[in-house]
């Protein structure tokens, strides 16, 4: 009875968010009664809140010697996810959905792992299942939109982003993504509108400056693109995406020296950047440095960039 009392005291502490005391009570109840499996589960729960995922896992494993519930499998999935054991986590989430088919969060995290491993079709399927269970979470819409964006289904992505917006997501990240998709569908008016809204929400969100620049690129307004990307670089001077894209804008303007400087900087920051090698090769070619261009193109090729036939011919010894 004493262990039960201890356990119940722990639950009371947990209800009041006094995690340390709750954990103490659960450990005491387990000291008295090591077979009180619920105390293991609640200890795991406490450890999860405290971000001590190893101890969380240990307690869940103890609990699961005698019990298997959707919650505990899901929680084990979360711990494994946090610890970077993605395959195990994915299996846990999946098992949680088998035990409890209404566990939208388990579907959601399946989708997250699918996305991170590049399996966008499965990610879309899992986010959709989560949405079928709970259609009011903007995060599900947002993340499914990101998947559509990745596979180039920009119209579908726009639909999901708009839905997320209507459910209360007002972040710059969402507006920036929306702007990007509008840009890809050549809907410049809406792209510009969303870029401006994103910048209005958070002027330090550097990704928006890039999208803004890309809209200008689409409109072939390279001068404007340079200005926008330079604004972004004021916030994050060593951002290789902004530097690379500004280099492209300079290149299109025929300002090859400035383009070269930007690509040089990208390669100083990331000596393994295939795109920057390729772009610098193009720039050197325009500066009639054929040897330098070929050297850069070969570097790009060795990093997975496919070279056009004429480049290969041009660089033949």
């Amino acid at each position: 009875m004493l262990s039960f009392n201890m356990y119940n005291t722990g639950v009371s502490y947990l209800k009041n968010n006094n995690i340390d005391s709750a954990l103490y009570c659960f450990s005491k109840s387990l000291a008295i009664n090591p077979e009180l499996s619920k105390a293991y589960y609640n200890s795991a729960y406490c450890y999860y809140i405290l971000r001590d995922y190893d101890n969380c896992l240990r307690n869940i494993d103890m609990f699961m010697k005698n019990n298997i519930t959707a919650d505990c499998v899901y929680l084990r999935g979360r711990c494994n996810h946090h610890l970077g054991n993605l395959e195990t986590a994915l299996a846990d989430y999946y098992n949680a959905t088998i035990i409890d088919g209404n566990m939208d969060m388990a579907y959601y995290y399946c989708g997250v792992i699918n996305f991170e491993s590049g399996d966008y079709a499965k990610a879309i399927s899992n986010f959709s299942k989560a949405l079928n269970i709970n259609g009011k979470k903007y995060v599900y819409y947002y993340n499914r939109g990101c998947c559509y964006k990745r596979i180039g289904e920009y119209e579908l992505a726009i639909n999901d982003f708009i839905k997320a917006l209507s459910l209360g997501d007002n972040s710059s990240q969402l507006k920036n993504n929306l702007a990007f998709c509008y840009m890809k569908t050549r809907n410049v008016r809406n792209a510009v509108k969303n870029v401006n809204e994103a910048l209005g929400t958070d002027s330090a969100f550097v990704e928006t400056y890039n999208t803004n620049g890309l809209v200008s690129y689409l409109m072939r307004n390279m001068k404007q693109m340079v200005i926008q990307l330079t604004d972004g670089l004021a916030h994050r001077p060593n951002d290789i995406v902004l530097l690379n894209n500004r280099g492209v804008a300079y290149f299109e303007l025929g300002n090859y020296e400035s383009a070269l400087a930007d690509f040089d900087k990208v390669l100083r920051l990331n000596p393994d950047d295939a795109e920057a090698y390729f772009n610098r090769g193009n720039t050197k070619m325009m500066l009639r440095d054929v040897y330098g261009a070929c050297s850069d193109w070969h570097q790009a090729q060795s990093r997975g960039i496919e070279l056009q036939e004429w480049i290969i011919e041009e660089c033949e010894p």
Partner: protein
Amino acid sequence: MRKLLIILLLSVCGSLVAVGQNMEFVKYNFYNKKAYKEAMKNLKQGDKLFYAKNPDYSQALNYFYVAQNINPYNAKLNYKIGKCLYYSCKDKAKPYLFAADGLWNDLTHDSLMISESSFMLADVYKSELIFDSAVYYFRKAASYDYTHSINTLIDKEIRQCLNNDTITRHPEKVFVDLLPVAINSDDNDYLPILINYNRGFVFNSDRKNSASKKSKLINFNKNKNPVNKFYYCDIISKNDYGTVNEYALLGSLKDDDIVTDISFDGKFCLIIRNGDIYVSSINGTELSRPKKLPQPVNSRDEESFACFNKNMHYIYFVSDRAGGKGGKDIYRVSFIIYKEDNFRFSDKVENLGENVNTEYDEISVSLLPFDNAMYFCSNRMDAIGGFDVFVSLPDEYGWLPAKNLGYPLNTPDDELYYYPVRDSRHGYLTRRVNYNDANIYRAEFVDFDNKMLIKNYDDALFDLSDEDDLKTVSYEPELVVSENVVVSVSGRFIDKDTHEPVGVSVRVYDLNTMRIKASFVTHAQTGRYRIPLPSGADYLLALSGNDDYLFCQKILHVEGTTTPQSYELDIELQKTSNESLINLENLVFVPGTTEGEVVLDEEASFPIIALIVMMLQGNDNVSLVIVGNESKAVQFGKQLVMNGISTNKLSYQFVDEPDSNVSIKILKEEILKENVGGE
């Protein structure tokens, strides 16, 4: 006097450019009368050449320079030098035209001259891509000449300048390289025609024995210029060309003849002679007598250029015949060849339509194989300046709207006679920078369109906080105990080491109330037991009746349940001999208030303390040795004493390890006595 001193000073220094007020060539303006005479003499000689029907600007310049050295402040003389240079060496004209612009006097000078001077200066600025200055001077030129023709021309120039400002800021990816000196002489070299399957080209040049350097470009067939010769050069690579030699094959043609195309198979060539198109067949090293093409290919108007398409189905040609879109237009006519070298033409000549032809001049045309693209030159409104190269692509209805090939292939100067090479990535063209100086260039398009790699950020998915996670799962709630349900617990008592059954007398205490809930004796052979116990409680087991097994640490937990259940539970007993050190697992210590201090948790440790107390109270001949860290052992001993155990029954054996657990050794009385005696 002061002015004269300045003039003399400038004369001595040989300064070329004037700054100041206009100074006319009149006697009283010159202190040095000899210099005045010299200046006037040269002016007259220069004017003779300058105002001739066929002006010789380069010769006139020599005289004007002498006069300029004596008086650099004359607007008209600066204008004349500027004009001479404008037609011979445009890039040197600017200082003189600029000086003239500052010296003009609206009251005394001819407004048309001012207009012309401003126009030339504007054109020089345009060539230098300084479009705002160009626009300024074009407007100035218009303000001094109200004739419709000049205003129409200036309007076009201004619109081009405004357009060019944008175009030149977005250059095309093309290299335009001047071919080597051996090909480009000091004279006009132009109209390259690729032959021998693109392994060489024929071009026109008036490099030798040229009596006059007047250009024959554009309207070459109208100008009866002598001495146009054809040269041939091998193309070894894009940077390497063979020796330039006269092309003997075309040596039999008349001086005025212009060869504008040689068929892809090298069997025929097209010739422009006196404003008409002729065709001649090439048989080995011989050129047949040119045959004039019939009407309607040739008209009463001028035909100035012709070429075959590569499949030899059409001749494309330039004509200014009536009924076109205006100026010179491009037409085509189909033909068949029969009996080896006879041509039969369609009756119908086709104007290529408004996507190609405009009210301005379209001149020179050339096509890719299969008519995949048509390149032509035009001075239309959307040219950058002068003549530019345009390209039009075919569709099922004809030709799509022509596109300017853009800067820097096209410039404010004249780009003429573009000859594309089969893959369209490069071609040869003629550029006329100065009025009398045409050269051949090689253009190479670098296929970069949309090939620069744009980077994007990798999307980060929105993640949920741990709080959101935990909204999904919940902790286990409080346990609800129901004492009404009795659970049947059965099993065996066995020796921990040997697993042999143990016969022992057991009393079961409710840990919460410390009341006896059950009492039984296990079977000596089987060790089995079966007891009914209320669920939702913890129970202590107190042993008696077997001296080998005095103590059981096991606490029986019976979870709360609402339905009758039965548990099977084997209980292991550890023999209590003198050697046995029994680790008290359920004795709980917690950190104290000071660092390193540990305090016995009485509540959590109550069951084990109760068990030991019951054992000691039930066995008078038994005492304890408490083994462990001094602090922990003493706290434990005190707790036993507080629960009624005599201190005589307790002894200590301290271990110098702060983390060690408390253990006990159970001693029977006689042994204790021996031990005590030993101490």
